[in-house]
Structure formats: structure tokens, C-alpha cells
């Protein structure tokens, strides 16, 4: 390795010119993806921080709002996302084994589950719209004691689930790209880095939801 030179790079098609070898390139991609996920944790962390502050200020108001969340759809969506993480793992496994058809099948399945999640999320948003639970001038709340405080919760609800949904949409775009790449025979058992990296991203987005679901839907149901 000490003597490796640019000329070595010519032999490996997926090795970019500035890396010594594939191992170094994979190390860089993996570390880069994890660092990116750390920035994502901090990004959502700001909203979780705001949630924590307001929930400790207004615990009763926050608890009362969770009776207006659609727990059934939320629970189904949680299941959908956990299952999509499983299919994503299977896609990575198929890539390791170099099974092109299996990669495409599992990626398509993951994409369908992601779209199912987003469709159910749309149904929920529509319910909120009908119930006047969208923060803003037309906001209404059933319990007159908590109108303003509940509006803050719904603001955070839409900010957090909305930001999560945007990440899901980006993920769906990335999955589509992967499917096209797989169909064009870009992956082999020796090189499947994009599948693995986007897999990490997909799991991260799922984990965010695992925190969002209890914090937004279930807090009022213990009393």
C-alpha cells in the first residue's frame, strides 16, 4: 500500500482516481455516511429539544392532544416502517451475494412500503385539516383551556412529522435510483456501496419515526 500509485487505479472500474484502493474508498464512504447521519441526529435533535421544553412546560395540554392523534394509523405505519427496514436489510444481503433479481425485488418492496407510509400519512394530515388542527389562523381546539398550548404541540407535530416525511420522500427517490442502477448491472458482490449507504439512511429515517410515534401519539394514553 505504501507504494501504491495512481496507475493502480486503472484496474478497478469503480475506484475513483484519488483513492489508493477499494478498501480505502469503502472506509471513506462508510465514515462519510455515518458523519452525515450524525448531522441528521443534530438536525432532528433541535426539534426534539423544543418538544422536551414545551412538554415539560405544558404536560396536561400535550397529553390532551394525543387523543386527537390517529393511533391506529400511527401504529400501522410503525409496523410498515419496521418491515421496510427488514426488506432493506434483505436488499443489502442480496447485494452482498450478487443476486441482481433479489436486490431489485427487495428494493421495490421497500419502495412500496415507503409509499404506503406516505399515503397513510397523507390520510392523517387530511384528518387534521378537516379538524382544524393545522396551526395558524384557522386553528381550533376542543378544550378551551389548552388552545394556545395545543397549537404549539401541533406546530411541533407538523414540523417533526413533516421533516420526517421529507426524508421519506428523499429516501424514495434514492431507492428508485438504486433500482435503476441495479437493473443496469452496476452492482456486484465486490461493489455495492450505494445499496449499503442508502440502507443506513433508510434505517435512520425509520428510527426517527420510532421516537416520534410514542412521543406524539401515545403520551396521553397512560392516564
Amino acid at each position, binding site marked *: *500500500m*505504501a*507504494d*501504491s*500509485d*495512481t*496507475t493502480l487505479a486503472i484496474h478497478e472500474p469503480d475506484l*475513483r*482516481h*484519488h*483513492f489508493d484502493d477499494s478498501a*480505502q474508498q469503502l*472506509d*471513506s464512504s462508510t*465514515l*462519510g455516511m455515518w*458523519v*452525515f447521519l*450524525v*448531522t*441528521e441526529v*443534530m*438536525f*432532528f*435533535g*433541535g*426539534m426534539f*429539544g*423544543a418538544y422536551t*421544553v*414545551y412538554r415539560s*412546560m*405544558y404536560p396536561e395540554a400535550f397529553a390532551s392532544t394525543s387523543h386527537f392523534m390517529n393511533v391506529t394509523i400511527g401504529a400501522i405505519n410503525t409496523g410498515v416502517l419496521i418491515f421496510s427496514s427488514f426488506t432493506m436489510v434483505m436488499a443489502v444481503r442480496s447485494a452482498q451475494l450478487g443476486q441482481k433479481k433479489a436486490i431489485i425485488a427487495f428494493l421495490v418492496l421497500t419502495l412500496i412500503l415507503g409509499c404506503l407510509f406516505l399515503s397513510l400519512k397523507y390520510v392523517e394530515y387530511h384528518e387534521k385539516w378537516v379538524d382544524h388542527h393545522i*396551526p*395558524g*389562523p384557522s*386553528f381550533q381546539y376542543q378544550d378551551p383551556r389548552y388552545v*394556545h*398550548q395545543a*397549537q*404549539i404541540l*401541533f*406546530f*411541533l407535530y407538523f*414540523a417533526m412529522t413533516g*421533516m420526517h416525511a421529507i426524508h421519506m420522500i428523499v429516501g424514495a427517490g434514492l431507492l428508485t435510483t438504486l433500482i435503476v442502477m441495479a437493473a443496469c448491472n452496476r452492482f456486484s458482490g465486490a461493489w455495492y456501496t450505494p445499496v449499503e449507504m442508502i440502507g443506513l439512511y433508510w434505517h435512520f429515517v425509520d428510527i426517527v419515526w420510532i421516537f416520534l410515534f410514542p412521543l406524539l401519539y401515545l403520551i396521553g394514553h397512560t392516564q
Partner: protein
Amino acid sequence: MSTTLPFAHTEIRPNYLNVDYGWKSWLFTTDHKRIALLYLFSITAFFFVGGAFAVGMRVNLLTPEGIFAHDTYNKLFTMHGIIMVFFFLVPSIPATLGNFLVPIMIGARDLAFPRINLLSWYLYIIGGVIALTAVVQGGVDTGWTFYAPFSSTYSNTHVILTAIGVFVSGFSSILTGLNFIVTIHTMRAPGMTWSRLPLFVWGHYATSLIQVLGTPVIAITLVLLGLERVLHAGIFDPAVGGDPVLFQHLFWFYSHPAVYIMILPGMAVISEIISCFSRKSIFGYTFVAISSIAIAVLGFLVWGHHLFVAGQSMYASMVFSFLSFLVAIPSAIKVFNWTATMYKGSVSYETPMLYGFGFIGLFTIGGLTGLFLATMAIDVHVTDTYFVIAHFHYVMVGGMVMAYLGGIHFWFPKISGRMYPEGWAKFAALVVFVGFNLTFFPQFILGYQGMPRRYAHYPPEFQVLNVMSTAGASILAVGYLIPIIYLTWAWRKGPKAPQNPWNAKGLEWEQSPTPPPTFNFEHQPVVTEPPYNYSGEEPEVEIG
């Protein structure tokens, strides 16, 4: 390695500058050195835009009544702050010198993600154009801090557009940091162990940690601010149960660590310069290296000292005050070690070293007055006065801009392949030093006597000091214009630079040609000696 590239002995050696002249070869380049130059030119442009707003402020403050309407003055200081902080100081050294030098200093052919590096420049430009659009449309008047609920509810200026500009450019900063972290971890040349990393690289590693951990928080804060401004749900409005102090917490969680984004790279440059022009190994290499990381880590724990008078709990303030004092320790380690490096060294007085001296003195004043401000009782007296302005300008301008200019001069031969005119450069360094002190030292006194910041008017007894400050600012402006002129001249007409004009240590001088070829080295560099080996220990056999 016996292979030498075929062009190595021809008369005009191909380098990253002459390899291609077309505009596409610049706008679509993935070469970190060309991207560094793209950043250099765009950052310089923003520096002068931000400086123009400062000129407007200083002109207004010549007389107690001022000449601008209050609203105009509010916009002047806001846009000065936003452009200088987000579009000059944050990217200044990392995106230019860091981008150019980090890969070369560790013996890599490029950053780990060259295309992401180019993307970061485009994000910077898009964010900058959005922010400038807001300026042209009439500007913004919230102060660079965007404090709610004024920014979210009451201001009738272009808050959202400006926030989008800052948001987008934030991702440029994140991507630069991410690229540096990965590059430093995975792409070091054989023999380039962590304990041989130049301190320039250590400083940029610490900076990158802050960029990666802090910037996403300001991004989401600005998203919440924008949503609140559209929806008026009251999340930062105390009238309906929102908490404006929460905004300040979120804002400073990024923006305090961000002031270390704006000084650590300066310290990184100074460590190189001091060691080179003292002809001595840096004193206490390990301490200087680790102190960068310590500043980055501690920097995340002190944001509450911006909220001493904002209604934060007194116990929280005491903890934040104590933690703020702790930051002085790694900062002082650096200053003492630079001084100890010069002790009994063969100090010479080239231009970069003059900026190095300026940095040490001015940063010390800026840092020590920071301790005044970390003391709660004194902070209550000088909060939101010119004392605070003077303090952070001593660090940001006296520290960071001095280091930036020092670094530009130190590596100008490397970057351009030409020498700058030493006489003019020394003269400009002197003008900058005099102009800077005349501008900002009177502001310490003004602040201590109680002149508040961000006011367009002031009582007549403050006029003498304000006129001194404006006079100093005029001298400072001249000091900044002179290097632009002679560096532009030197880039075309300056004498050709030798390979290593300063006889400096480091891969960028010793093993990479001047100016470097596209892939930085003609053969794989190998590191065989400790860093800053100026004491003359013979390196082991060169491989080449």
C-alpha cells in the same frame, strides 16, 4: 518508486493552474485546489460587501445625530453581521486555505469526496445569492441573531429570504466539515500518523467537528423560525405561551460553537507561521493539538453565557459562567506555546510573521476581555454595549482576519507560483494593525462607559471616541485594499517562486511541486520525520 511522470523535466511543468484554461474547467472542477480558489474569490467579494455596510455604520456614527434613518441603520448592522459571519468568517480559512492545503499536508491526491466539495461551493453561492437578493429587495433588520419574537412576528423586512440564504449556505459548511473529517481519517499518506499531523490539520479537524455537530441545529432553528413567521402559531411568542428564550438557546447552541469555527482555523494558520519563522519545532506539539479539540468540545457547553440577562435560571448562568472560564485554558495553552516557540528561536520578520505577532497580541486582548464577559456581574454591566462589539472584533478581525491574511501571504507562493512584493506587504500589515486598534480599542472604552450597541444615535460626550473609531476604520479599509492590489499584480507579474521560499517544513513545501500538479504529488509521498523538524534532524532516506 522509480516512475517519474513524463512531463517532470519539460520546461513548463503542468500544474493545477495551467492544465486547462476554459471556464468549464473551473466551474465543473473537482480539484480541491481550484475549488479553494473559487471560494477565495467569492469570499473576498462578500468580505467587501460586508465591509461596505460597516463603512455605512461608521459614517453614521461620526455625529451624535447620525445621518441615516433608524430603520436604515438597523439594516446596515444586520447585513454587516449576517454577511461577515455566515458568508465570510465561517467559510474563510477552512474553505480556502483548508481546502487547498489539508489534502496536500496529509499527502492525499484530493479530498475524500471531490464532487461534494464542488457541491459545497455551489451551495455557498446559492445561499449567498439568496441573501444578497434579500439585501437588494430592501434588507433585513433583525440583527444577525434573528431574535424572536421580533424576527418571527414584528419585523416587516425580508427575514424568511435571508434565513433561507443562511440555511442553504449552512449545508455548504456541513459538507466541507464532513469532507475534512473523512479525508483526515482515511487518506493520510504512509507515515503520516496522528502525532505527525501538522497543527493546521488538527485545527481544521476540530473546526470540522463543530461544523458537523452545530450547523444542523441552526438549520432546524431557522426552519422553525420561518414556519412560525408563516403560521403565527406562537411557538416563540410569549403572548400565547411560546418561549422566546428557547429560540436564543437553539440559536446560540450553534452560534457560540460557531465563533470557534471562526477562530480555530486562524490558530491553525498561526501555529504553522510561528514555527516556520522561528526556525523551531512548535513547543508542546501534543498540547497545542489537543487544545484545538478541547476548544471544540468545551465550545459546545458554554452557549448560555449569551443569556445571562435573558431570563435564564441563575443556577444555569453560574454553570455556564464556570464552563466559559474553562475555555480560557486551552486558548491560553496555545498562546503560551506560541510564545515559548519563539523563545530562543531565530525569529525573522517576513509578512506572515508580522500577522502572526498581530494575531497573538490582539487575540490575547480579545480572549481576556472574553473572561470579563463570562463573569456574570461584569456582563450585566456591559451586556449589549460596545464592549461586547470590541471584544468579539478583537477575536474575529484582530484574530481571524489577521490569520487569514497571514496565511494568504504565507501560502501565496504555493498557490500562485509567484512571490508577492515584501515591502508593500509589510507596509499593509502595519496599516492593518494600526487601523484595527484605532477602530476597536475606543469601543472598549465606549462600551464600558455605557454606549449601547445597535443604536443609530448617541449622547454628544461619546463623539470623540466614535470619531477615532471611524478614522481607524478608514485606515483599516486602506489596509485591506492594498493587498488586493499587490496580490493581483503579483499573481500575473510577480517573480517566480522557488519550490520552498520560506525553507518551511511540511509535505506541501517539501514534497509537492510549487504550484502543485492536479494530483498534488508526482509520486506517493512518505513521511519519515516528526512535524516541524526545524532543528535539523536528518530525515530518513527519501523515497522517490
